[in-house]
C-alpha cells in the first residue's frame, strides 16, 4: 500500500515536434553518434541477457534483434540524411513504429509496441543523456506514478525512495516489470483504464495493492486509517518476508501449507522467492487458448514437466481446463449462450468433449509416472455441480493405464474438486468420500451464492466472500472434508488477505493457495493464529447476518 501525490508518466511523446534546433553537426557525424549509441545499447542488452533465467534473457536477445532491425535503422538513417539530429531521428522512428504496432488488429502483436518503445528509450538515453531515465529517477518522494504501461527499462530506473505506488492504465505489465516493481516493494495495480491518465497531477492518492484499488483525494478519516494500516503492514511485511522460506505453523502447532497460484509458465519466474510450499492452483487455460488445435498429450506432458522442474515443494495442483462460452477456443464449436457463467463451462464442457478431458488426464497421469518426477500431482476438477460429474471423471481416470497404481501409491496422484458452485458445497458430504481433496474457489462461490456478477460494478459489492451465506457454505464444505479426512484448500482473493486467515482456519480450512506476493504474508498470519481463538471467531462469524458484521469481527476498532 502506498500513499503519495499523483504524477503522470508519458514515456515517448507522440510524433515529435522537431523542437531541437538544426544540429550543428553533419549527417555523417549524427549517423556516427547513432551507431555509437547503438553499440552501447547492444553491449547493455548483451550484459542483461546474461541473467540466469532463460525466459527473461530471451526477451533481451529479442530486443537486440529489434535494435538492429532494418525498419528502425533505415528510418533513422533517412531522417538523419534529411538533416535531423540522431536523437530526434530515433525518437521519431521509434514513435512511428510504436504507433504502427499499436494499430495492429491482433492484441498480442499490438502489445509488442512495448518492446519497441523499450529499445527506443535505451537508444535515446545514450543519445541525449537527458530524458526518461532521469525523469523517473528524479521524482520527488511519495510519488504515485500513473502510466499507460511501463517497460522493463522504465522499471529499472524506479526507486522505492521516491515511488510510493504504481497504477497502470493498461492490462498486465510484462513479467519482469512486475517482478522489478515487486522486488522494490512498490505496490502496483494494473488494468485500471486510461481515465487515470487525465487525473490532475499533485492530487493525494492511495494505492491499495492488496485490494487493487486507487483512491484519489481520500477524506481525512480514510487517509488516517490508511496511514496507520500502512505502518502496521510495513512492520508485518518485514517480519513476514524475513521468514518467507520457513514452514508456517499455527500457535497451537498445526502446519498449514501455503501454496501459490500460477497462470502460465512465466509466472514461475516470480514464485521461487515467494517461499511457497507448492503449487495450489495451476490454471491450464494458457495451454489451450490462442491456437487452432488443442495441445497433444506429449505437448501437455512437456509443459507440466517444465513447471514441475521449477516448482518449490512437492505438490503440483493442476486444474483441468476451465473455459466456457465467454472465452471460446477456435477448435471447439462456437457456443452462443445468453449466460455463459451458467452455461457449458469447466467440467461440463470437458464431459461434452471427452477427448479433451482424456488427453489432459492422460498427460497428468503420465507425468506422475515419470521417474524424474518425485512430487505429487493433484488433479483439480473445476465447476462441479453434480455428483455424476465426479463419477464420470473417475471412470475416465480408471480407464487410463497406470492411474489406479499411482493413485494407491499413497499420494502420488490425487483427485480433488473445486468447490465453487453452491450445489457442490451443499453436497460436500456426499462427494468427499469419493475424492482426495477439496479446493474452495471463493470468488466464484461468492458470485454464484449471491447471484451477483463480480465484474458488473452495479452489483459487484454484493458478491462479498465475507457474506455469512458464503461462510456457511465454506463451513459446510470444511466439515464434510474434515469428516472424510481430506485436505481442504482455499483459493480466491480472500485467501490472499492475511487478516482473513484466522477466520478461514477457524472454519476448518487446512491449506491455502494465493498469489505469489501474498505467500509470505499469509504464512506470517498462520504463525500468529491460535486454533481455539480462530474457532471462536468462526463461530461468531457464522452467527452474523451481514458481511459488514464479519468485517468488524476481523477488524475491531
Amino acid at each position, binding site marked *: 500500500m502506498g500513499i503519495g501525490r499523483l504524477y503522470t508518466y508519458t514515456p515517448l511523446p507522440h510524433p515529435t515536434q522537431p523542437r531541437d534546433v538544426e544540429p550543428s553537426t553533419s549527417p555523417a557525424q549524427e549517423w556516427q553518434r547513432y551507431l555509437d549509441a547503438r553499440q552501447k545499447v547492444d553491449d547493455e542488452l548483451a550484459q542483461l541477457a546474461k541473467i540466469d533465467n*532463460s*525466459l527473461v534473457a*530471451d*526477451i533481451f*536477445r*529479442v530486443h537486440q*534483434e*529489434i535494435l538492429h*532491425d*532494418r*525498419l*528502425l535503422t533505415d528510418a533513422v538513417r533517412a531522417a538523419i540524411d534529411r538533416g535531423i539530429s540522431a536523437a530526434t531521428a530515433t525518437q521519431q522512428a521509434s514513435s512511428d*513504429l510504436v504507433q*504502427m*504496432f499499436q494499430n*495492429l*488488429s*491482433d492484441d*498480442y*502483436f499490438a502489445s*509488442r509496441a512495448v*518492446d*519497441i518503445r523499450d529499445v527506443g528509450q535505451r537508444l535515446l538515453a545514450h543519445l541525449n543523456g537527458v530524458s526518461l531515465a532521469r525523469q523517473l529517477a528524479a521524482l520527488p518522494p511519495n510519488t504515485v506514478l500513473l502510466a499507460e504501461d511501463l517497460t522493463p527499462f522504465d522499471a529499472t530506473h524506479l526507486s522505492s525512495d521516491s515511488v510510493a505506488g504504481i497504477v497502470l492504465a493498461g492490462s498486465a505489465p*510484462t*513479467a519482469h516489470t512486475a517482478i522489478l516493481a515487486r522486488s522494490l516493494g512498490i505496490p502496483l495495480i494494473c488494468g485500471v483504464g486510461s481515465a487515470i491518465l487525465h487525473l490532475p497531477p499533485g492530487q493525494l492518492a492511495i494505492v491499495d495493492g492488496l485490494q487493487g484499488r486507487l483512491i484519489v483525494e481520500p477524506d481525512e478519516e480514510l487517509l488516517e486509517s490508511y496511514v496507520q494500516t500502512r505502518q502496521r503492514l510495513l512492520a508485518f511485511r518485514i517480519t513476514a518476508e524475513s521468514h518467507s522460506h520457513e514452514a508456517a505453523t499455527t500457535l497451537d502447532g498445526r502446519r498449514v501449507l501455503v501454496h501459490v497460484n500460477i497462470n*502460465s*509458465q*512465466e509466472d514461475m519466474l516470480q514464485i521461487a522467492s515467494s517461499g511457497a510450499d507448492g503449487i495450489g492452483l495451476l490454471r491450464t487455460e*494458457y495451454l489451450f487458448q*490462442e*491456437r*487452432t*488445435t488443442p*495441445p497433444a498429450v506429449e*505437448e501437455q506432458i*512437456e*509443459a507440466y514437466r*517444465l513447471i514441475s522442474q521449477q516448482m518449490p515443494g512437492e505438490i503440483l495442483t493442476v486444474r483441468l481446463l476451465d473455459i466456457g462460452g465467454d472465452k471460446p477456443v477456435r477448435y471447439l464449436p462456437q457456443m452462443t449462450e445468453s449466460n455463459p457463467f451458467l452455461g457449458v463451462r469447466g467440467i461440463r464442457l470437458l464431459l461434452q468433449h471427452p477427448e479433451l478431458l482424456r488427453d489432459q488426464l492422460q498427460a497428468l497421469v503420465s507425468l506422475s509416472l515419470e521417474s524424474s518426477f518425485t512430487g505429487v500431482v493433484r488433479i483439480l476438477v473445476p465447476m462441479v455441480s453434480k455428483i455424476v460429474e465426479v463419477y464420470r471423471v473417475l471412470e475416465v481416470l480408471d480407464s487410463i493405464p497406470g492411474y489406479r497404481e499411482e493413485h494407491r501409491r499413497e499420494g502420488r496422484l490425487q483427485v480433488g474438486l473445486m468447490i465453487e458452485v453452491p450445489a457442490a458445497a451443499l453436497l460436500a458430504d456426499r462427494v468427499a468420500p469419493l475424492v482426495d481433496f477439496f479446493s474452495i474457489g471463493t470468488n466464484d462461490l461468492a458470485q454464484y451464492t449471491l447471484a451477483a456478477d463480480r465484474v458488473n460494478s452495479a452489483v459487484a459489492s454484493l458478491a462479498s466472500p465475507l457474506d455469512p451465506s458464503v461462510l456457511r457454505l465454506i463451513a459446510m464444505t470444511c466439515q464434510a472434508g474434515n469428516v472424510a479426512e481430506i485436505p481442504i484448500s482455499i483459493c480466491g482473493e480472500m485467501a490472499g488477505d492475511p487478516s482473513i486467515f484466522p477466520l478461514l482456519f477457524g472454519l476448518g480450512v487446512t491449506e491455502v493457495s494465493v498469489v505469489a506476493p501474498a505467500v509470505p504474508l499469509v504464512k506470517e498470519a498462520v504463525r500468529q493464529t491460535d486454533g481455539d481463538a480462530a474457532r471462536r471467531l468462526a463461530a461468531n462469524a457464522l452467527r452474523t447476518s451481514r458481511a459488514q458484521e464479519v468485517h468488524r469481527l476481523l477488524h475491531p476498532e
Partner: protein
Amino acid sequence: MDKPDPGALPAPPARQEHSATVTVRYPQGLHLRASRDVVRVASQYAADITAQNLSRSSEQVDVKSILQLMQLQARQGHVLHLQAAGPDAADALDALCALFHRPPSLSSSTAGC
C-alpha cells in the same frame, strides 16, 4: 509457381527465384522469439526473402526484419507464402521451410515475449 513446401522448383535462367508456402505451427503463432529464429536463419543468406500471410491477406514483408515479420500477425495455422530471389534463394527457402516444419519445442513457444 507456388509449391506446397519446398521441392523441385523450376529454375528461371537469370536470377534465381523460388517460392514456398508454409504453415505456422507454433502454438502461440509467430511471436517475438519465433520471429527472431526466422530472422536469424534468413540473415545467413544473401537472397532477398519476403513473406506474405495468406490467411490475413497481408502485404509482403522482409523476412530479415523482425519488426516486419511481426506485422504479419501470424497465428498458429496461418499460411505464409515465402518468396526468395538471389543466388542462394533455393537454399534459403529450404532452411526456412525446415525451420517452420520442425515441431516447435515447447520451451520456445511459451515464452513471455
